[in-house]
């Protein structure tokens, strides 16, 4: 089985689906001849031509707005936004248009498409190449929000996204784009949305995370001694739809929860997870829910490692929660 990084897995999924479904088209800044600034679309224009892999003018609202039109007409666009930080010129098209098209047309005009975008910090990118906007999209009904943490999931989830009936925000953790490597089966396979993955079974407490943070959590376990508290580590993979069953089952078992995400804490996705657990499993809790998150500040440059949840912060949260 080939060993891929996340970029290669994404590329593989796109290529397979484009071979199979002539309606799949890719558009975005620098995605064609260059193959994308992160090279995720490398070779696609060569294989599929300029009508199916389009270098666009520099305008995110244009990329998403035109992709919506293509989707309405019957294509299956995959729009790449070069960095999630640059998605905001297209926010209106995504939130007011894409997310609501099916609903506002009484189901007559669905616009299934995929928006791929690298997100997250830890690459010395400062505040405009590091942000984690997942909660903004999870807070918008009509969008699915998917975040893989490794190549195997990236490929399987992207293939699902490319066949899904709804618009999918596919956020790719660029910090581990190349670092997360793993075996990826050749050929097609899909991973259903709404299924979290239990990465490590445990009895002591439940750790909920996704994206690059999964790797930082695992580092806390492996290098900082957090494993001694026997955490159950869950990679959510899919924020919308959310696998509430897996989460709640784990919480009922452990009674203790630590949530880790790199986006700022206030109104982050961890708030939703906390509320869910408080609503559905309060009486199983034996300790307060703890969130380890980015600070409630813009993303800094020099001090990014202090801003981001670190293995040390996570270990402390795990220890405090386990001992509570």
């Amino acid at each position: 089985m080939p060993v891929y990084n996340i970029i290669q897995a994404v590329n593989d999924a796109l290529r397979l689906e484009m071979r199979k479904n002539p309606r799949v088209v890719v558009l975005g800044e620098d995605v064609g001849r260059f193959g994308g600034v992160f090279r995720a679309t490398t070779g696609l224009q060569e294989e599929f031509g300029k009508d199916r892999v389009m270098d666009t003018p520099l305008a995110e609202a244009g990329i998403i707005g035109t992709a919506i039109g293509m989707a309405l007409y019957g294509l299956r666009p995959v729009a790449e936004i070069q960095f999630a930080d640059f998605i905001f010129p297209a926010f209106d098209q995504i939130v007011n248009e894409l997310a609501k098209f099916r609903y506002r047309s009484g189901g007559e005009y669905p616009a299934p498409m995929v928006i791929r975008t690298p997100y997250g910090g830890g690459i010395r990118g400062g505040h405009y190449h590091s942000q984690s906007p997942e909660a903004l999209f999870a807070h918008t009904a009509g969008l699915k929000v998917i975040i893989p943490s490794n190549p195997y999931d990236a490929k399987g989830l992207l293939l699902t996204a490319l066949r899904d009936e709804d618009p999918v925000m596919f956020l790719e953790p660029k910090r581990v784009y190349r670092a997360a490597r793993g075996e990826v089966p050749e050929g097609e396979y899909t991973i259903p949305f709404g299924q979290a993955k239990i990465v490590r079974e445990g009895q002591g407490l439940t750790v909920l995370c996704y994206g690059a943070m999964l790797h930082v959590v695992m580092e806390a376990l492996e290098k900082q001694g957090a494993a001694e508290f026997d955490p159950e580590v869950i990679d959510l993979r899919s924020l919308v739809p959310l696998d509430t069953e897996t989460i709640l089952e784990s919480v009922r078992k452990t009674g203790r929860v630590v949530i880790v995400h790199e986006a700022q804490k206030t109104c982050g996705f961890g708030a939703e997870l906390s509320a869910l657990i408080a609503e559905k499993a309060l009486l199983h809790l034996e300790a307060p829910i703890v969130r380890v998150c980015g600070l409630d500040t813009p993303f800094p440059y020099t001090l990014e490692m202090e801003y981001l949840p670190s293995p040390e912060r996570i270990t402390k949260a795990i220890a405090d929660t386990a001992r509570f």
Partner: protein
Amino acid sequence: MNQATAPGLTILEAGDAPPPFAILDDDGAVRADVDPALVPKISDADGLRIYREMLKVRLVDDRFMKLQRTGRLGFYMQSLGEEATHLGVAYALRQSDWVFPSYREPGIAFWRGYTLRDFTNQLFGNAEDPVKGRQMPVHHTFRAGNFVSISSPVGTQIPQAVGAARAAQIMGKDDVSVVYFGEGTASPGDFHVGLNFAGVWKAPCIFVCRNNGWAISTPATVQTAAKSIAHKALAYGFPGIRVDGNDVLALAAVTLQAAARARAGEGPTLIEACTYRRAAHSSSDDPSVYRKGDLDESAIWEKRDPLNRFGKYMTKRGVLTPAIEQIYRDEITAELQAALAAVETIGPPPLVSLIEDVYAQPLPILKEQLAELLALPRQKLSH
């Protein structure tokens, strides 16, 4: 076929783009076909200063790209071949005029007094960085020079510059506002919104588009089907002009005119400075992947090098000599050396800087979050 006609049934047509206005030829001589009245009357002292600051951009870029390559600096963006677009415009403005830069015009900050020490500290994001280690390298802020904080999301500065220009108008000042962007940045909505507002308000705003042919890997032909970027001004009701972006004199002349128009209440101007991005987009970029063979015009544009051209002009004027040039090189190198030596002694910004300037006063929740961080053993800053 018989063409049916009716009054008003006329398709509007844009004329072809003229060649960019140039004063100097590639050898730094004033072109024979240019009316001498058009040559800006730049004093010897100003001419030397323009040359010195262009040279500074060149030398500084060269040094920091090398430092980036050796891993000492995280990221860098250079202006190779585009320095005239900084200094030609800088010269034509008053210090009280506001500049809304993009990431590729450090020369205008230098002209206005931004020191290499501040510049260097910003790149390293250290405790003496004017923006406190908050921004990626090359995202400078220089308030004393009316050089507004640089943003990565391209084009956001365009309507902001129009707003500042309108504010000057409302407040009865005759300052103008100048905004820089690349030709790729003539594509997003903010460009069109900004120009439209400026036209409607007759805002004292000068739009300077550095058309360097490329937006990362995307050639200018993918950005627009218009005959030029300058043409776009016409649709918004004000003049556009194409100028040789490697000719500092032509840029100065055109900017002086645009500024005079703006101060006289006649409204905005769009200047398309035609130039070429000879280097990579940034230190993260590798143009050899997408700009091969005929697509790479760097060698052609090197012959039109703005520093060389202006240097030859100043030499022909009898002002610049090899000795003066050497003094400038030595001075700049010494200033840079001193800045780099200082960097070695300056640590990262303190942790408290994380929560400052988010709001005028840190919110209680931020103080709590800082306290949690301070309670942890200080982690190493490396990655």
